[in-house]
């Protein structure tokens, strides 16, 4: 009733605002569909042998035959498959365990604050930090040597780069977990959902349910629908990510995505055909993983439906709580030690193995880096602000349009938004650069902002959509019945109510933009230097010290954004009280 009344009111008011708003979903879909289609075309045509630039204009299955004949093909696919599925499962399970264990404790906020910064560490930097931790000459090995292990020179063990991909799983899990946790906390931060779930949880506690059992039986079933898309995005990303497997993974053979990237970059340009065929295979691997997750979801639902209502109040909660504490401590110390290692490297002089801390402390790495960092720093911030601002405006307008129409985006549009996250970016970006060439755009800055937008927009939308859709429509209905114009309702009621999730979405958007490497490099033709392009170029270089400085800078920037996102609502909230 409220829904339809409110819907009619909105449509009746045909102002400039409502017209702009109603137009925005098409803008968003176009902004994503166009480059995605061009990107897909730029993959599909070469995969079937059509590359006029190489003088190949005959369609055929040559690329796929070449692909299948690649030594170790099945190993590559399996490695992509297992590492992404296991890491996503681990990250999801640990997220729910942490939520369950600390649901009504102040520790949840503290853990969020501790893990938040991790979300913003670019994948490459995180991989380097973790690699340093587990490498033979790494922090763990140094801490036990030589007093415990007897090692005076680094042992020759196989981590990182183990053939099973365990190092990749560790890296991906640690990178994915904070994202899922932050999304979940974003959902819980919305007053209506959060308060409802918390009060339901309290009721369960008063009925004698143990806290963790209550969470799994009462909160998780209502919370999971909000987490489904983020989890799927994480899974899709993990299956096609390049940085972490490149730095932590094996290379005899590597994961499929890494192999595709290497074929694309190979000097033998005819490998492009094989790379494109590989990209299509990658897309099907990703789709298969998404399907498996969906099936798993149904299976869990079927298996757990009885236990939800069996009335059992406790499933060894204390044990599980201890396990969660242990896991959390382990997780935080892995992260802490990695970050500590980075900090040490950035100021290290001589630091021979097996010393746990450097022999000498120097500021030269920071000094020389800060001198060269000036222009990249400005570029990074400007591009981040432009792409995030565009993403936020589009997202908010699209979500407002949904409410004015009284229905959510069509299923097709919803899938389209996530396309940039589902297609391996290296293949997709080759098509994008081609498109930008077609429209003869030589404004590298604009090209880069638009390329970033493709990756920022889905995340911003993902992080904001649920909150926006859950805003109680009765507020708007009441305001409308009192004669408020849609534009006023939008600015004075909805946006202030959504301040916290919007700020988190902005911080997330900035973080995503800051960490983009391939889009910056390809769309900018290499002319736009950001902290991230510099950091990745240096990560391939020989100095762990200089790359530590850049990685720390990379963390510092988005950390500021998240700090602000966290501070503003707190300050405003305090004032109101």
């Amino acid at each position, binding site marked *: 009733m409220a829904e339809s009344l409110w819907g009619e009111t909105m449509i009746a008011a045909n102002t400039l605002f409502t017209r702009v708003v109603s137009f925005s979903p098409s803008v968003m879909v176009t902004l994503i569909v166009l480059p995605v289609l061009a990107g897909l075309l730029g993959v599909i045509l070469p995969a079937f042998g059509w590359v006029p630039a190489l003088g190949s204009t005959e369609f055929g299955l040559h690329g796929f035959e070449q692909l299948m004949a690649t030594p170790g093909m099945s190993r590559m696919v399996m490695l992509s498959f297992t590492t992404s599925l296991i890491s996503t499962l681990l990250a999801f399970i640990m997220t729910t365990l942490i939520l369950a264990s600390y649901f009504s404790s102040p520790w949840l906020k503290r853990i969020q604050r501790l893990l938040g910064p991790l979300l913003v560490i670019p994948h490459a930097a995180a991989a380097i930090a973790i690699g340093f931790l587990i490498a033979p000459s790494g922090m763990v090995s140094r801490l036990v040597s030589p007093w415990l292990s007897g090692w005076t020179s680094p042992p020759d063990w196989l981590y990182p780069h183990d053939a099973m991909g365990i190092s990749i799983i560790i890296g991906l899990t640690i990178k994915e977990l904070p994202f899922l946790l932050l999304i979940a906390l974003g959902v819980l931060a919305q007053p209506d959902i959060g308060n409802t779930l918390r009060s339901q949880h309290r009721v369960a506690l008063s009925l004698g349910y143990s806290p963790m059992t209550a969470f799994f039986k009462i909160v998780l079933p209502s919370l999971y629908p909000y987490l489904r898309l983020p989890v799927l995005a994480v899974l899709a990303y993990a299956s096609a990510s390049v940085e972490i497997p490149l730095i932590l993974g094996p290379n005899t053979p590597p994961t499929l995505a890494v192999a595709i990237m290497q074929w694309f970059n190979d*000097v033998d340009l005819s490998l492009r055909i094989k790379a494109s065929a590989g990209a299509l295979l990658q897309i099907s691997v990703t789709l298969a993983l998404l399907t498996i997750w969906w099936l798993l979801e149904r299976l869990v639902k079927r298996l757990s439906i009885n236990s939800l209502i069996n009335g059992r109040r406790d499933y060894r909660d204390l044990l599980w709580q201890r396990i969660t504490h242990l896991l959390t401590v382990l997780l935080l110390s892995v992260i802490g030690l990695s970050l500590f290692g980075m900090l040490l490297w950035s100021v290290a002089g001589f630091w021979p193995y097996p010393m746990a801390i450097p022999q000498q402390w120097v500021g030269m790495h920071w000094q020389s880096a800060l001198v060269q960092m000036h222009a990249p720093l400005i570029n990074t911030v400007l591009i981040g602000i432009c792409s995030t601002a565009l993403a936020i405006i589009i997202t908010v307008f699209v979500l407002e349009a949904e409410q004015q129409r009284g229905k959510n985006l069509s299923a097709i549009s919803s899938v389209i938004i996530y396309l940039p996250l589902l297609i391996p970016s290296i293949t997709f970006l080759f098509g994008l650069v081609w498109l930008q060439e077609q429209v003869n755009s030589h404004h590298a800055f604009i090209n880069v902002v638009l390329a970033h937008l493709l990756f920022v927009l889905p995340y911003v939308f993902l992080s904001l959509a649920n909150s926006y859709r859950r805003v109680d429509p009765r507020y708007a209905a009441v305001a409308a019945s009192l004669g408020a114009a849609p534009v006023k309702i939008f600015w004075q009621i909805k946006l202030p109510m959504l301040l916290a999730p919007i700020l988190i979405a902005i911080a997330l958007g900035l973080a995503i933009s800051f960490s983009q490497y391939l889009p910056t490099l390809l769309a900018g033709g290499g002319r736009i230097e950001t902290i991230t392009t510099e950091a990745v170029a240096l990560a391939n270089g020989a100095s762990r010290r200089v790359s530590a400085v850049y990685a720390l800078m990379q963390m510092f920037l988005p950390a500021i954004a998240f700090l602000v996102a966290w501070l503003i609502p707190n300050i405003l909230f305090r004032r109101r009280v």
Partner: protein
Amino acid sequence: MTISKRLSLSLHLKTAHYHLAARVLFVCLSTSLWPSVSHASTSPDKIWSEIESRGRNQDVYFHAWGGDPQINMYILWVAEQVKQRYSINLHQVKLTNTSEAVSRVLSERSAENHHNGQVDMVWINGENFASMAQHQLLTPNWVSQLPNFSLTNPEHNPAMTRDFGVPTQGMEAPWGQASLSFYYNSTATTVPPLTLLQLLDWSQDHPGRFTYPKPPDFLAMSFLKYALIMLNDAQPTAIKERLYQPASPQSEALLLPVLWQFLDELHPSLWRKGQHFVSSGMTLRRLVGDGELNLAFTFSAAEIPAAIARFDLPSSTRSYKMQDGSLSNIHFVAIPYNAAHIDSAKLVINFLLSPEAQAKKQHIEMWGDSTVLDRSLLTLTQQTLFSTQTAKQDNKQTIPDAAATSMAHYVASPALSEPHPSWTQIIAQQWLSRYGVKP
């Protein structure tokens, strides 16, 4: 470009893609006919002064590998110089892999952007050059226009016009030369291996302390080519010569088996027992710094003192060349066929070939890259720019003593030339199918 070549080019392109062919042909005709028409009436000096006047006051985008701060600093110095001389703003586009620039030009060509390309200059050699040349992605016949190119004495020094054995056809100007050098941690090992066979023994005595990058990395291929040349050293000359000709199934059967035999013996004693290979030579250096490796190799030994000064390598690091030979090659700068600022790029490249820029580059504290100029053609003043005396004095000021001594250990080493580029792909492919997938 001769008429017949131009015709064959146009025929080849017509079969490939008619529109493209027409456009490229137009570009080729207009760029290659123009100098030959004007040649009749104007002298080379006149052509150069026209290039100079057209090339001023522009931006030039130099796509060059950006992984070494020392090299980046040198390019920054070049940028200051050309700014002063020609008001040219030289921007280094820092690549992690030169093939990124190749892809860029290729995608521009497939988008039919034939005149306003984003890459003005590219630092290149070997396979990347062969690949770009094969796909006609480079501006041909401009190198001889550069006044300073004659200082390389190309008539008497064929290496300046051949890149991995492939004629450059005026498509790229030489920039510097380097040779494969080894370095080791002298506290961990007092006697480094001095020949390839000693390397095998050394590695078996020090398991896990040596490795090489994974092909098709440039440095990896260089190591494999060095091994291939040395292992076939005892073969009759007629067979050895096949390394410098395009590879064929017969020559593969004659030359490659010894390489695989050697690697089968070497791999079990490598770092990670040969189950994982590093991605680049830079990673080798980091692993030596971490103490995981005690022996590694590089194409620019001059980077070692600087790395010591930055604490990236232990001060006990020493570099040397293998006694049985060191692979050496020349690296080049090229201009893509569709560069937006061709004339400005020529001005910059001519400056790169000036005695001043070459001398600066050769200094250990700057880059340490050997000059391509023929010293005998230089004036006395120009020669003093290169004198080791100045280099050493500079050395003392900028590099700690321990670092300076890292270069002292030197063994006379014959230069080995690069095999024909066709070998690179064959070795890489066979390596990947043999060792690229671990059971």
